[in-house]
């Protein structure tokens, strides 16, 4: 009854039942699992709790990642966001710090929520929690925002892909950014159509983004790409809240993302053979890591 796999379904069903996207997501999940909506909310709140922990510990930790390429940028950025006068304002700088925090925690083997993947796990929590703090929103509002985000993620997963190996980083950070943009609009009181427009604009801006992890590790450039996914989501959400619409509808952007993913060469889909993973510095890092591995085994 509440099932949705595309923008059209979401528009039709939210209009028919006079509900928000988050409510549609909650009711569909309750329906498919044969449980009460409150069970779905409770379970989603557990994910929110993990995200909050990642941010709290991540902005303080300077421990290096297990691959050794990142760790400590979140702390630097958080300090800057709160003590200096960031060019994009305190909110954006803090949200960027949060995205770095979650991705650095991921690379330290901490417990995280894949959102929609482990590689893109920073974007959604960073956006939602930073804006939630600024606006004084409670956990219930943030939990609903996560449900809104997952509805957009379902549309992208069903119509294209959320895997970097299939579609490049546009499918991971791009999807996360679209999910966050829509969720932010609902948090700010925007309409269903504004949510969908925000998602479409955010995803459009990420088309073509390649997946080129240095030495195959979820560290460089992944952590900083999450930060850019945050900035993109906030810009898209603000445009939608201002009343700007996407000329290309979300369903068509999703299809375009799938086609672009197909057109991406194998080297640029998580294989660590192209993009910055093929750079001179990346090669040197690779040599260094394989040497230390050989010494250990």
């Amino acid at each position: 009854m509440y099932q949705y796999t595309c923008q059209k379904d979401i528009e039709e069903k939210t209009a028919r039942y006079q509900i928000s996207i988050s409510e549609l997501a909650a009711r569909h999940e309750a329906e498919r699992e044969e449980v009460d909506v409150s069970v779905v909310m409770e379970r989603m709140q557990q994910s929110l709790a993990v995200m909050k922990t990642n941010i709290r510990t991540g902005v303080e930790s300077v421990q290096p990642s297990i691959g050794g390429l990142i760790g400590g940028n979140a702390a630097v950025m958080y300090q800057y966001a709160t003590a200096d006068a960031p060019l994009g304002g305190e909110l954006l700088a803090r949200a960027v710090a949060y995205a770095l925090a979650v991705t650095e925690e991921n690379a330290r083997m901490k417990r995280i929520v894949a959102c929609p993947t482990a590689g893109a796990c920073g974007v959604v929590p960073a956006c939602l929690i930073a804006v939630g703090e600024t606006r004084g929103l409670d956990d219930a509002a943030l939990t609903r925002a996560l449900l809104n985000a997952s509805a957009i993620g379902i549309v992208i997963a069903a119509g294209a892909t959320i895997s970097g190996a299939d579609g490049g980083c546009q499918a991971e950070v791009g999807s996360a950014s679209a999910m966050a943009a829509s969720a932010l609009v609902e948090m700010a009181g925007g309409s269903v159509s504004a949510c969908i427009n925000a998602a479409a604009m955010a995803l459009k801006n990420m088309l073509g983004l390649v997946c080129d992890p240095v030495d195959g590790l979820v560290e460089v450039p992944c952590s900083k790409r999450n930060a850019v996914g945050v900035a993109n989501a906030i810009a898209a959400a603000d445009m939608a809240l201002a009343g700007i619409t996407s000329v290309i509808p979300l369903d068509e952007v999703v299809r375009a993302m799938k086609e672009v993913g197909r057109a991406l060469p194998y080297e640029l889909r998580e294989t660590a053979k192209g993009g910055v993973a093929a750079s001179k510095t990346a090669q040197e890092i690779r040599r260094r890591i394989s040497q230390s591995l050989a010494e250990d085994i």
Partner: protein
Amino acid sequence: MQSDYSVFDIVGPIIIGPSSSHTAGACRLAGAARAIFNKPIDDAEIHVYGSFAATLRGHGTDKALVGGLIGLVPDDERLPRALDLAREAGLKYRFVIEEEMAAQPNLVRFEMRNANAGAYMSVSGASVGGGNIVVTRINNTALEISLKYHTLVVDHLDRPGAVLSVARILADNQINIASMNMYRQAKHDRAYMILEIDQPIECSVLLALRSLPDMSVIYIPQLY
């Protein structure tokens, strides 16, 4: 293409980072191997292929594989300390980095031993994305087990009536079979029956299955 996603496929799963396929999937594969061996493991040789071999350390794949063998699950916060925990638990393990190209990019083979029982088993499997796994071989038999359902692995002698005897016990206990596959080494030789079932199995049913002649039955509750 899958279309009926759960919101927790998208915001989730909750796992120990950094990679769903190289960390969570690796841990699940080891958990599957441990469950199929079904005896305490005191010695394990872990052969890694493809990108499992390439990012062994950097994605914590080594810790995830050993962690799974001692019973840790993909969101267990002890996973980063798995190598120490394994030594404390008396598990001897070695990694063998295989250079050859395997059929799957994330492939591992566990060679597990239990000295007391004189038992040995080799289990191979692949991590196929998003933390999903498939077990591809037990000893010399190629097969396919996803562990997305409650699963029965029945090692039996390839002869008429084997399937019926298992199916009758399940039917008598109102257990529905979602899928069933047979794999054998050769005619009249040892064979595996893999049954995915919709309901969990109670102890009494498992005992009834285990009393069947020439069969050894392993039950693996839904892994995820």
